[in-house]
């Protein structure tokens, strides 16, 4: 099995080398319906821009004083999760925004699902839209994240990899199982009828396999997010995406 897998990987790598435009990895966009794609393609019709608008107002009020215009953060979101040497920990973009509020502004932390945190991370994410994901593959976090991705968990005894690698492209109920490339978070999900973070999506999966849910500010959440970001390295940032 291993031999076949590495052979298949080599063939994929070879075909990618022959035609650099061919991207064997598919984002959730590629697996969405034409209508959902159209919703993401038009900023005037993408409901996530309601959160971007809120983010702009918050930015002007709280962030601009230090950071200047939001546009100066182009490329920043594409590098997250990022190791913070001062705090000696890996931080997701949301964790960084909360850290900035509590440590630098002396303001109360946002709850992880606070609409304002979604609004700010959507605004910052949008600045990197179209850029390749480019997180630093930093150890030991990357290996921890990959271990979490491959570990069988929960009452259903399933790993992330079993659905999102081995069975990606197959159908589960009415939906196509995506490859699990987190290119567009925070994203507007039709199922949520609102905006949500990557953490919310991961929690969705953890609940789905009846596993214990790690906390939003836990090292596990950041490590898994880093592994996903490195796994999707080079794919384009789509934030704020629309997903079914």
């Amino acid at each position: 099995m291993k031999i076949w897998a590495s052979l298949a990987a080599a063939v994929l790598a070879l075909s990618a080398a022959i035609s650099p435009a061919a991207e064997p990895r598919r984002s959730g966009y590629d697996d969405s319906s034409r209508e959902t794609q159209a919703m993401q393609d038009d900023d005037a019709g993408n409901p996530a821009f309601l959160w971007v608008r809120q983010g702009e107002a918050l930015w002007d009020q709280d962030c601009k004083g230090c950071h200047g215009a939001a546009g100066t953060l182009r490329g920043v979101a594409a590098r997250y999760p990022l190791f913070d040497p001062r705090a000696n920990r890996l931080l997701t973009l949301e964790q960084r925004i909360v850290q900035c509020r509590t440590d630098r502004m002396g303001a109360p932390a946002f709850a992880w699902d606070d609409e304002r945190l979604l609004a700010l991370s959507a605004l910052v994410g949008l600045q990197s839209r179209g850029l390749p994901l480019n997180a630093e593959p930093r150890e030991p976090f990357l290996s921890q994240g990959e271990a979490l991705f491959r570990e069988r968990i929960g009452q259903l005894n399933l790993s992330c990899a079993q659905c999102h690698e081995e069975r990606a492209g197959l159908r589960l109920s009415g939906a196509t199982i995506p490859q699990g490339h987190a290119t567009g978070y925070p994203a507007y999900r039709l199922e949520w009828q609102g905006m949500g973070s990557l953490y919310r999506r991961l929690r969705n999966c953890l609940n789905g396999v009846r596993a214990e849910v790690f906390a939003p500010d836990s090292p596990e959440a950041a490590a898994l997010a880093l592994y996903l970001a490195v796994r999707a390295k080079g794919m384009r940032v789509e934030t704020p995406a629309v997903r079914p």
Partner: protein
Amino acid sequence: MDRVLINVPKQVTRGVPFEIKILVSHPMESGQRRDQMGQAIPRDIINHFVAMLDGELVLEADFFPAISANPFLSFSAVAEKSGILTLAFTDDKGEVRTETAAVTVG
């Protein structure tokens, strides 16, 4: 209804229909759902919408709970001269939110 996004072309041509797109942040709570305690969640939707261009009607709409959360609407208008587009949204509490956008005929 705290955020309304209005998209109107920067410049429109006299007598030629142009497209207006709007997005409104609103849960459009259908009144059909129950919370985790089994209690009915009361209906709370934007039930009426009016678009006027310089006091003349463009479009009037009645919405029912089948309109999705964070409603999107695209429609078209015709202008003979530059003017002000006024959009009014009414919700179940009777609150009316009014937004305006400039229409420039070039």
